[in-house]
């Protein structure tokens, strides 16, 4: 079963460098983040081998959060070959996230 990748300062840049990556910035105390957590897990399975589905715990990884100006979570950033190409602030449906990933895969 494919699982999402937990990103830290050590593996962030290397992970997003190639291909399509979705990164969910979240925190344990954030209600809407908890609600989209199952969606992120499903996306990790659905896009196994096609796109990387990742999570960043904003409590623990403050440097990454600051770098991308995260001030509101959940914030879902989409990268293609290392470049930020799209983002969603706030909870949304699985389809909405899948559409954004597919748009970058196309």
């Amino acid at each position, binding site marked *: 079963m494919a699982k999402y990748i937990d990103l830290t300062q050590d593996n962030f840049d290397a992970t997003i460098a190639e291909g399509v990556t979705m990164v969910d910035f979240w925190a344990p105390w954030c209600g*809407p983040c908890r609600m989209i957590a199952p969606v992120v897990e499903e996306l990790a399975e659905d896009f196994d081998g096609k796109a990387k589905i990742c999570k960043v715990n904003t409590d623990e990884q403050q440097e990454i959060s600051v770098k991308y100006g995260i*001030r509101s979570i959940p914030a879902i950033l989409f990268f293609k070959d290392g470049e930020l190409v799209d983002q969603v602030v*706030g909870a949304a449906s699985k389809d*909405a996230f899948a559409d954004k990933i597919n748009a970058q895969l196309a």
Partner: protein
Amino acid sequence: MLDCAIIGGGPAGLTAGLYATRGGLQKVTLFDAGVLGGQITKSSEIENYPGFFDNTKTGLDFMESWQKQCFAFGLKHEYKKVARVEKVEEHFKVIFDNGEAIEAMTVIVATGSTPRRAGFKGEDEFFGKGVSTCATCDGFFYKDKPVTVLGGGDTALEEAFFLSNICSDVYVVHRRDEFKAAPPTLDRAMRKENIHLITNSVIDEAYGGMMGLDGVKIKNTQTDEITDMANTGLFVFVGLNVNNGVLKDENGDFICEMNEQGQVVVDLKMNTSLKGLFVAGDLRIDAPKQVVSAAGDGSIAALQVISYLQEMQ
């Protein structure tokens, strides 16, 4: 053909689903493209729902238990965004944003409301980048830092209190000199040393740069004096707009009777002016915008759907 299509998964829609399915309807589907639970899931506390009195629990904790119960009797949920509802002869067509549609004998619209924007300069530009409508989501980004709250109602002061336990100082900016919030909520905020109430004032401008909001300018409406509040996050709680879009036809006209504020005219049984179409929760006229009343509306609408379908047979 569904017995009943429910649009919206907040307290009104979930309760309608519970009552409709437990009341014997077999084919009931709730359509909501977002997260279930409604606006209360963004709230840091819920103190006025009888039977639930636990100040360690958030609005989200509270709504999690609803889902298990409301889906226990056969209610289905589909993650679909509804574009509009159309009456076709004796039944309804629910049309989704991707152009697909389903048919239903009855429809309960419980799409609720969303936080209103205040309309100051920079609000849209910095929304999600320092301007927020969710203290439980974003408060922790301002740990031990000052924040500004705009608004004078219950939500504004409840969330100001929540923020006061995280942030160094909370400046509550309100355009009037008196607050609308319930007395216990206002008292609690006034007793908190790091909550500062700034009355007769509005946000003149939110400013910042590439990395988001840097600060806000607060204007006193009596003296026109501007105070610069640097290094702050801004939380806006200035009321709600109803989500009535699904009730507009292709030409943008409403399919049922509305009032001037865009709320749906209903009777005490949640009947709209269109037979078989019911509305529950914040979207209706005179809605108190409370979880307990939205739930009440949902139950009334579902019971009415059941008797409407019996009469049709």
